[in-house]
């Protein structure tokens, strides 16, 4: 589904990604862990198409297409979804408007008809129940005045509505209380399926108790140093990242 090969990217003249290789197949859940500033969000941003990054080497293939050649909205319509680490507040743009415009853009791409107001509302109500979000959020500006946890929940609500093929979750668990973590994990798990894949960036093994990953990667200084199964996350939790770096230096 997603093949990243030798990906190098920089901001200005600072190279952040220094050769990422990652293979994600349909149905898989990958977790990416790594120290602050190692390039996790940069990777997510490059995959989603944020401006300001220059890819200097490498390729990214998504469902047989050259992902890096696509505009951000083309990626979204093709089923790529990024849940932002820091969702942007957009006062004056209605949450419901965004959900509807986004859903109809994705549906159009899939060759499905636009939803009318009733069908849309029924669908969104359903997903909001799943996310245990009050309907009043629909009439607020996008993320406007949302608490940190509410913003994260809103990201997953959007994901649940859009049903992407490839979901990139950047620290969606950070800032969530214990109950909210369960709700968000529920939302993510509801999306799991043989045709979909999930790549989630996290600092905490706790999330992985709820969403079990097939593969865990350690990203450090712009490279994936080590990959393993979910026991790697447990080990990282106990021992930190230094030993992985040392191992990598020796190798």
């Amino acid at each position, binding site marked *: 589904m997603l093949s990243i090969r030798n990906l190098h990217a920089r901001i200005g003249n600072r190279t952040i990604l220094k050769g990422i290789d990652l293979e994600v197949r349909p149905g898989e859940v990958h977790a990416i862990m790594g120290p602050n500033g190692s390039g996790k969000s940069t990777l997510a941003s490059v995959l989603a198409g944020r401006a300001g990054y220059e890819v200097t080497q490498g390729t990214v293939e998504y469902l047989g297409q050259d992902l890096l050649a696509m505009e951000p909205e083309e990626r979204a319509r093709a089923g790529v979804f990024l849940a932002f680490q820091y969702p942007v507040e957009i*006062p*004056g*743009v209605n949450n419901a408007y965004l959900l509807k415009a*986004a859903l109809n853009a994705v549906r159009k791409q899939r060759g499905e008809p636009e939803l009318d107001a009733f069908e849309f509302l029924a669908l969104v109500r359903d997903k909001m129940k799943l996310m245990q979000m009050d309907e009043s959020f629909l009439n607020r*500006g996008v993320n406007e005045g949302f608490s940190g946890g509410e913003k994260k929940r809103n990201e997953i609500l959007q994901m649940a509505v859009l049903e992407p093929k490839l979901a990139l979750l950047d620290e969606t668990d950070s800032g969530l209380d214990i109950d909210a973590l369960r709700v968000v994990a529920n939302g993510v798990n509801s999306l799991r399926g043989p045709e979909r894949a999930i790549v989630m960036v996290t600092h905490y093994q706790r999330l992985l108790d709820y969403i079990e990953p097939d593969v865990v990667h350690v990203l450090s200084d712009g490279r994936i140093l080590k990959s393993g199964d979910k026991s790697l996350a447990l080990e990282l939790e106990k021992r930190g990242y230094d030993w992985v770096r040392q191992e990598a230096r020796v190798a």
Partner: protein
Amino acid sequence: MNAAVANDALAPYGAAFEAVRATVGETAAAREQAFARFAELGFPAPRDEAWKYTSLRRLEARRFAFAGAGGAGPVDTPAVDALSSHRVTVVNGRVTDAALVRSAPLDGIRVRTLSQALEEGEPQGALLRVPTGGGTERFAALNAALSNDAVVIDVAASASVAEPLHVVIAAAGAEPTMIHPRLLIRAGAGSSARIVLHHVGTDSAEHFVNSYVDVEAAADAQLHLYRLQSQGARAFLIERIDATVGQRAAIVVHDAQLGASLSRLDLNARLAAPGAAAELTGLFLADDSRHLDAHVRVDHLAAGTRSLVDYRGIAAGRGRGVFNGKAVVHVDAQQSQARQTSRNLLLTPGAEIDTKPELEIYADDVQCSHGATTGQLDPAALFYLRSRGLDERQARSALTRAFAGAVLSRMDLASYSGAVHSILDARLERLLETTA
């Protein structure tokens, strides 16, 4: 040499005045004085602070026919959507629906022309007042000299009129024409009323509309003015609105500046008695090569007065916006509040908006704030929307509407905000097509 040039520019106005002089009867003396004031001030000099960002040289060089005493002959009235079923239409300075004017168009509101008011013994001093000061004094004086059918609108004391009165000021005809519409709006004590002030014109001719609006809100009156400036694309428009607000009275102005080639609005509110309030909000869209200049000034003259000024500007293409907001809190205006914000959005690199918030405070126990920002659409917000599947144009459109929305959402008159929205939407659509 300079004087000769100035005289040259003023000559056609002098000729126009000669043409009206004979027809204005008892107001001749007052008009003579007003014209003398205009001639004395002339057009603004190059370094006039009140005209720092707005040059009138193009206007000064144009020659206009005068829709004066003789009338302008048959003219096409531009089509106007009904913003209310109660309408007064002033075409090239003349009231066209005289029948409406004679009868009371709305329960509690009386509309007369200047001559009717004079016949009924109103003192001409109040009807043809010439304000002093400000960059547009010259034009207000010119208006007093040359205006023909001033429209006098009186809201009866204690009347509460829910239906808005729609006043259409139209510039019509194929020949470039100068027009001096004049309005006197008096809200009686304890009254409440809503008036739509709607400028329309043709896109084909370069008319010059020089409008003066004199507003008095007596004690406890609530007057809402909805201004929709959609003058023709080639027109020059200068308008001065002077509002004097009495004890515990409030004036609320909604302003949408969407038309004209060059427009200048001076909106002055004098909070003259304790507890007077003004809420002045507006939006301007300077696209193409439109030049829109708004000078908003609030004078706090008495204790416990409150003002809120919130203007938002959008510029694109070679468009140019100017916003000058000034609050003056005079020495007697203790415990007053003056808030002012100006936010501006540049949609394309060539566009420009100059903004200058000013605050002068002579009282010590007051709350004042002012702020101005000018920027582009937030790239992080644009990316966020695009990452959800909206194309760039949709994303830009949503963010631009959101920017305008903060002012639009205050427009509490459905027919008016509907009209503003539809003009704005069509223009933004076209804009984003050419800039995305």
